[in-house]
């Protein structure tokens, strides 16, 4: 092995060591002392969200598709909430297909969205902008 190769391996080893530690922190840390943890019903909703590709058109925290609206705070939004969500699920508006969810499934999806809603805000209207380009988000548990 040449000197240059040894040197490259050394840099990669250092980077991978940092990467492993960094991943360890990401995997084990939570957003706060009391992180939002899904219940069985919410996890059922999450599964339905995934199996029906809701993310293809909708977003949570701006992540997902762009054909439909972001649903991060749909649960607590003014004039919206559980009944509004349920009404949309099986009605087939515009590009949204008519799903045939049972009442139990609709409740599971609403519960999942309720849990997402409880984790934070999007858009984060009360975020504070710093002069170095940083943005301080408003956290839901700050209230």
């Amino acid at each position: 092995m040449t000197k240059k190769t040894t040197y490259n391996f050394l840099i990669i080893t250092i980077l991978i060591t940092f990467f492993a530690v960094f991943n360890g922190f990401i995997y084990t840390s939570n957003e706060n002392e009391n992180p939002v943890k899904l219940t069985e019903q919410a996890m059922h909703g999450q599964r339905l969200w995934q199996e029906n590709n809701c993310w293809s058109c909708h977003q949570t925290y701006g992540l997902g598709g762009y054909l439909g609206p972001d649903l991060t705070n749909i649960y607590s939004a003014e004039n919206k909430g559980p009944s509004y969500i349920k009404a949309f699920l099986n009605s087939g508006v515009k590009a949204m297909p008519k799903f045939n969810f049972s009442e139990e499934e609709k409740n599971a999806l609403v519960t999942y969205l309720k849990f997402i809603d409880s984790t934070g805000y999007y858009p984060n209207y009360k975020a504070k902008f710093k002069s170095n380009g940083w943005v301080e988000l408003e956290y839901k548990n700050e209230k």
Partner: protein
Amino acid sequence: MKNKAAIIFLITALLALLIGVFFGLMAALQYLIPEFLKEIIPFHKMRPFHVTTVITWIVLSATGSIYFYLTQVEKLKLFSNKLMKLHLGIFLITGLGIYLSYIFGKMDGREYLAFTHILTIPILFGWLLFGINYFKTMLKQINNWPVYYWMWGTGIVFMIIHLTEAHLWLFPYFREHVIKDLTVQWKSYGSFVGSWNMLVYGISIYLMSKIKGDDSIGRNKLSFFFYFLGLTNLMFGWAHHTYIVPTLPWIRFVAYGVSMTEWIILGYMIYEWKKNLSQTKKESYPLTYKFLVTTDFWIFINLILALLFSIPAINFFTHGTHITVAHSMGTTIGINTTILLASLLFIISKISIFTKKQEKIIKRGLWGFNITLFLFFTSLLIAGARRSHWMYAGNDTSFSSMQDSLFWVYMVFFVFGMALTTSISIIGLPILKKLINYLRI
């Protein structure tokens, strides 16, 4: 001796490109006519078809190119031809499985990897075979690796790591914590893209060194500096996807700091811009050269965009809008696709020859490609700016009204998408024909 498996990788990849852009066009049409195909194949099913197929193009063309370079250009003896054929067989059968999973609605995966998650196992196995074959071949026969060999090796290893990481949601520990789950999911996607970029950018440096007939571009200290910078970004610079997710601030801060190092790349590119053009021996590989010049342009545009929205204060307004889509289209079509098409043209120059007429058609196709991609890209930026304005300054109107107001932008987006599909076909079809002919002879 011919490497038929490598050529089959490339043919499948080109077919995926042509089919993938067609799926994209069908999905775009649903923005204009929401009822279109709604009963047969609604948007939420069409989008995975499009995304998976274009990812297939990138992955298979990069893989096929690497196998071809090693065996046909570098004349290395592959550790195992059987492993390569097994790799090809596994990917082809799994690809078929993915489409069947989509057709029968078994989409229990997540964004970008929507297929039933069990199919990830053969994909990982395929990457593992590629890795074994690659490292066993290279470690035995090459002592002092140029940077592109490091990049391909790193790309393969990190593909395995991040494809695995993208499925950590299968463990309740991850999926029951909404924020952690979102963070890990988007961390893996950011790095997953970084991994295929290692393969693709490695190909571009390889091609540049071959065109110049000078290997120093792949061996100098600066190339290695950029390689390690890219690797650092792959590992730690993904969090601009999740700036807006209420994770712990230090996670976002690390990403902000690391992302900003990419300004060095941009500064260097501006400095080297003219110098690179004059040094390159473009006469030997005129088509490959033209595509790489195109890549330079798109890297420049996309890096500026990416760097801007890596600044949290800007990201705040662009996140969740079509500006992000513009960036991903700009990078996958403008950068990855032009490099990979350059690679295919380089491979064609080794196995066959284009007539002057064919060369002229491909050059015209490239002009069409650049113009239409630029307009397509611009229409997405406009749509993104409008959405951002609606989110932060016009929230008194409904989402539906905002979408309706974008009708003409979506129309432009669709029309240029169609023109782009035509340009890609003009370039891709003669290449496909050459590859198929080569295989048949």
